[in-house]
């Protein structure tokens, strides 16, 4: 035992499984054999992200020894047709380049396809047969991961069909069954609860993996490291030193052909309720007692529970909404939201949302959390900015020098890193003060590129590690937090007539006004 109570030992770490050779291996292989079923197998997400991710997990030798992939979708095609589609998706979108033999041949023979609609019980019976064949022929041992990469409207139907044909976790009799659910989980609090009721009848909470791909990004995981692997930040991470927090998720993209979906979603449901609320929880939660999934998720739930409910009559004061009109992105003209395919020409769906949240607990009382997300803004930028309080007493600086607030910025995308803004003396005989920046950039700091979030998250779900997935209680709290806004925005037309910001701009003026009224301003995108 060392002086500091830390044990120094040469004993091997305990193996995680019955196989003692697995203890502490440098490779990050998934040991449980399993079949992964992609519902919505012909969709854009599967093609661009999920199938390339699976292949890259194979290339990195992370997949289990015995695995199978089943695509499930409406369109008619044979196993061989689907394999050809999978290969095209890999060739086009895989970060490791085109699929190559001998790996591809081995991968392809593990891929099969079931054609059918999600309400077709016969198709699910065929799925069951294929899963059983996989168990027999590929040795997948009854372990199944069902990935719902479909529109949210069919989540409940799929789960019910799985149960109807005896594919629920309790029916299989051996192995494990897990379900990965893409966001959004429900379209409001009520529908989320209804969906949860269906899901929980079939899968216990430990088997439900609500995916938010933001949480698989390295800089998002680094929020925890920054806060809890350093002693210098925690003492000032509270209302005594922090003036306000700004969370931004800005995109230059429009709805990219998803006008139909976006019409029923909007920025509040599409981004704020999930991505942004997850970021807010990570930056504001108390230190977890351990790094286990439930310890972290307990703290996220607690801080989301401390969000001050927004009274219906205060919604207009603490929120801003917007919709982009025609404008320029990177010098190129783009159409307005109402001119996008699949969008109602009189749509009042918001493509920009800003909200001020307050957290009623000892750490954060009185500190505003301003969050915003929008499409077709001037720059792609996701970040969390912690703005510290102004100096209590001005000692330095010539008259006219502006002494800025210190700001800590956690950059999520496209830049990945951390920067701290502080004040320094300008060289010269006078005591001029100017704000300077100290930057850490993941690329420059580590010189490594990280795997896409979906690779990490699919592998975690196969391993049974739910740390980076959202638990139902947090989903519910997030819906509760935005419900008053949804209600108000659904039942009342926007105060400013839509469209109210130009594509390629910083967003609507009403969002600026919201902060100006409190003596603050948004960070420039």
């Amino acid at each position: 035992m060392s002086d500091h109570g830390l044990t120094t030992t040469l004993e091997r770490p305990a193996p995680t499984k019955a196989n003692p050779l697995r203890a502490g291996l440098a490779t990050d292989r998934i040991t449980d054999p399993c079949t992964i079923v992609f519902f919505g197998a012909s969709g854009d997400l599967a093609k661009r992200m999920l199938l390339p991710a699976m292949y890259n997990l194979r290339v990195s030798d992370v997949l289990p020894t015995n695995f199978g992939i089943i695509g499930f979708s409406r369109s008619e095609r044979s196993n061989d047709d689907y394999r050809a589609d999978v290969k095209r998706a890999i060739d086009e979108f895989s970060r490791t380049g085109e699929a190559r033999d001998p790996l591809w041949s081995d991968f392809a023979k593990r891929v099969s396809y079931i054609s059918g609609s999600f309400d077709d019980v016969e198709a699910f019976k065929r799925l069951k047969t294929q899963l059983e064949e996989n168990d027999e022929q590929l040795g997948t041992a009854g372990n199944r991961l069902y990935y719902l990469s479909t529109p949210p409207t069919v989540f409940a139907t799929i789960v019910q069909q799985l149960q109807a044909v005896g594919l629920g976790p309790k029916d299989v009799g051996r192995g494990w069954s897990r379900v990965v659910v893409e966001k959004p989980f429900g379209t409001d609090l009520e529908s989320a609860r209804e969906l949860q009721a269906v899901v929980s009848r079939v899968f216990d909470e430990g088997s439900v993996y609500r995916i938010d791909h933001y949480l698989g990004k390295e800089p998002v995981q680094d929020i925890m490291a920054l806060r809890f692997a350093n002693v210098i930040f925690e003492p000032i991470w509270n209302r005594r030193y922090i003036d306000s927090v700004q969370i931004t998720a800005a995109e230059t993209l429009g709805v990219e052909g998803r006008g139909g979906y976006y019409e029923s979603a909007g920025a509040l449901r599409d981004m704020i309720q999930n991505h942004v609320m997850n970021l807010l929880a990570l930056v504001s939660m108390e230190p977890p007692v351990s790094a286990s999934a439930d310890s972290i998720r307990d703290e996220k739930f607690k801080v989301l529970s401390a969000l001050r409910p927004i009274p219906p009559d205060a919604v207009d004061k603490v929120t801003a909404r917007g919709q982009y009109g025609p404008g320029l992105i990177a010098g190129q003209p783009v159409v307005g939201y109402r001119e996008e395919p699949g969008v109602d020409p009189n749509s009042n769906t918001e493509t920009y949302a800003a909200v001020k949240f307050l957290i009623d607990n000892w750490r954060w009382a009185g500190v505003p959390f301003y969050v915003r997300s929008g499409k077709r803004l001037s720059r792609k930028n996701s970040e969390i900015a912690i703005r510290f309080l102004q100096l209590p007493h001005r000692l330095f600086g010539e008259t006219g020098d502006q002494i800025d607030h210190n700001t800590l910025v956690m950059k999520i995308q496209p830049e990945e890193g951390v920067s701290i803004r502080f004040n320094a003396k300008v060289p010269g005989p006078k005591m001029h003060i100017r704000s300077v920046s100290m930057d850490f950039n993941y690329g420059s700091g580590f010189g490594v590129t990280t795997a896409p979030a979906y690779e990490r998250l699919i592998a975690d779900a196969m391993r049974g590690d739910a740390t980076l997935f959202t638990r139902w209680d947090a989903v519910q709290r997030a819906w509760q937090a935005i419900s008053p806004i949804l209600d108000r925005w659904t039942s009342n037309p926007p105060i400013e007539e839509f469209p109210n910001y130009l594509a390629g701009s910083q967003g609507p003026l009403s969002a600026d006004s919201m902060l100006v009224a409190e003596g603050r301003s948004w960070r420039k995108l």
Partner: protein
Amino acid sequence: MSGPVSVTHLDGILAELQRARVALSSGEIGIAPSVATLNFIVFIDDPARRDWVRERALLVAEKHPSRLILLDACDASGGANVRISARQTTGSTVVSERVELAVGGLDAEALTSLTQELSVHDIPTVLWWTATKLLESRRFCALIAQANHFLVDSSGADRDEAVLRELAQFLQRYDGISLHDLAWMRLAPWQDMIAQFFDEPALSDELRAITSLEIASGSAAEALYLAGWLASALSWRAESPYSFRTNIGRHVTFTRAHEGERRRVVRVTLATDVSRFVAELSADDHVVGLSVEGPKARAPWFVPLQNVENTTLIERAILAGATDEIFKTALQATRDLLT
């Protein structure tokens, strides 16, 4: 090597560094190159490997924001070359500072003084030692005192066994310095493949019944490390360089065969009284075939062999931090096997 300044002219080297910084920051890139996150000291004394080591050291240094201090003991000219380069990647610029020194004529004390002065303070220092002798080298002992991380490749030399013994001693002597052996790191895929045999519950019991272990490899370190790893994981005690005793008293024979290229494992065979587990490299070097023979036979299956380039291994070692605990126990078991 000849440079604009001499290794004995420290101020001149530092001035060159400063000049290179200014030139870079006022050039096209226009950046302030002051973001080194590690000192990377590389020592070379083998002319045959000089270019190979230098090339890899430069690749690693260019990818990581670092100050590379390359000590070339093959060259006694006393010259020094200083260079700072910036590499643009997506969304970031990696700046590396490089100081190449011809130190063939310098003794341990002079080397210590030089590297101390040239290292950036308060950041980790990695020493990549490529010379054959370790603890008996005064220059090694001088340089290791400045390092936080020690990088070595015990494989492929003609004295693998001696190096492994020295590494075991190193662990005992230098508790606070992390040790990374590229030879061990190269074995990660093989360890995983051997473990795969016993993931299935039906086969995991066979682990306790192993009676023989055969490893064919192109150099000794790989075979010894794999044997040491299995011994430490399965609580086998070395009885001789060719046998172990399990914790239930069973005898396990160990056979090494010299086969294939240096630094490559060709085949690992584990056997019980009734079963054989074979992992064998294919002719094209890219795939390993795994098979189980006997009453619990399995259809052969194939696993991609991730032949990781040495540069990548070095990067992994730099990013890894502390010494791998499994490596420590395996190295101790390997030492016991050699004793």
